[in-house]
């Protein structure tokens, strides 16, 4: 019974996961993080199509897949905008669409510094069945992942999320820290969270030969994130936290594949999350369609 129910939803889930693979031509240069944002923006005019999935099994509950389909566009060199569609599939339950998110990132400083800030603002319109775990805030934990879809989807979450993203590059390493503030617009208190990550390409200098699987195309690192309570009960009490290694591979044609096993650090966390990501970047997407950006053809 368990297997049959899961199997009937498999084609829908597969389409959701593999849709980015069907897109065309592009470039990608990604860090291996799944939750942590770095200071790097999308190149202006480029469109990245990506899917991120989180697979987990809370104790005494069914296995779930939280999936996100992401469209990221570099509107300006200092402004990146992203649109997400989220879905959730649960063994012995169902596969459903859980909502959308629209986020914008702004880079306030024109030059590179030792620490580079980026301001992030997001509007989410999702329901309580969402399991994409793109951030963990407040007292989020396993209890939010165990209700059946029919019940969980009745909870409407219209939220504003703000992040302060700080990022540094040093000797090939990227170190990024995010402070998260989230507010459900239905009079709930502000919730807080954090995410930190560090990563490095396996080789810093590029090869003089074309290669698909040389060390420069792999990046590895570590990521940690979790909740920090809310306005009325800040701190680590009844919060969930995850830590895990992350690795990705960027192909010469622009496809990036990422993987990270992440481990829950306390009883409020899912014991183990497996995260998979696949991204494809389409360079100068409107230029390909004949629309060219403004410019005088001269360097300034």
């Amino acid at each position, binding site marked *: 019974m368990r297997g049959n129910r899961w199997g009937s939803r498999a084609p829908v889930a597969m389409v959701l996961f593999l849709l980015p693979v069907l897109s065309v031509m592009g470039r990608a240069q990604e860090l291996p993080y799944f939750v942590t944002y770095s200071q790097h923006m999308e190149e202006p005019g480029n469109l990245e199509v990506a899917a991120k999935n989180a697979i987990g099994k809370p104790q005494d509950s069914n296995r779930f897949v939280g999936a996100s389909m992401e469209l990221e566009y570099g509107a300006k060199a200092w402004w990146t905008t992203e649109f997400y569609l989220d879905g959730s599939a649960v063994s012995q339950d169902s596969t459903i669409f859980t909502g959308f998110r629209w986020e914008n990132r702004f880079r306030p400083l024109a030059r590179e510094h030792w620490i580079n800030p980026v301001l992030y603002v997001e509007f989410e319109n999702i329901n309580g069945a969402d399991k994409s775990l793109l951030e963990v805030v407040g007292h989020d934990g396993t209890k939010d992942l165990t209700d059946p879809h029919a019940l969980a989807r009745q909870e409407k979450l219209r939220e504003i999320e703000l992040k302060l993203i700080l990022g540094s590059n040093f000797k090939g390493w990227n170190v990024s820290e995010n402070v998260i503030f989230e507010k459900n617009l239905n009079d709930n208190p502000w919730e807080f969270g954090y995410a930190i990550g560090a990563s490095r390409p396996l080789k810093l200098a590029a090869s003089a030969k074309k290669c698909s699987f040389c060390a420069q195309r792999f990046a590895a690192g570590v990521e940690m994130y979790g909740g920090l309570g809310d306005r009325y009960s800040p701190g680590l009490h009844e919060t969930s936290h995850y830590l895990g290694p992350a690795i990705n591979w960027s192909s010469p044609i622009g496809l990036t594949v990422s993987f990270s096993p992440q481990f829950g650090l306390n009883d409020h966390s899912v014991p183990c999350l497996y995260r998979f990501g696949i991204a494809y970047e389409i360079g100068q997407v409107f*230029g390909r369609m004949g629309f060219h950006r403004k410019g005088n*053809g001269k360097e300034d």
Partner: protein
Amino acid sequence: MKRRLSIITLVIFSAGILAAAAGADWMAQVPARDRQKTNPYHDQPQAIQAGRLLFDEHCAECHGKNAQGRNKRPSLRTERIQAEASDGDLHWFIINGNIRHGMPSWSRLPDQQVWQLVTYLKSLKASE
């Protein structure tokens, strides 16, 4: 609540305006210590070849396969880039970009790869 949201919105838009205001002549903004940096790969054939591959992957989409400019994006075969700018100038420019004019920061590339790109760019002949 409304007042707080207004303040947050104001901060975000101010940040955008600040970012847009930056720009102007990039070579005048390069700090002296960056201008004088030495390219560890200067004129090395292996680095030129690696830089060419990096250029194809990250830069050719905007600047064209032969770096002669494309779709109103500038040529990199100008006298200014080939003769006036030092290796250090170009390294600084690739790392920082010129955000107001659409050139993104390439600080995500490791320093070694940025120097390889500079080595390739300096190996090109000026065509104007």
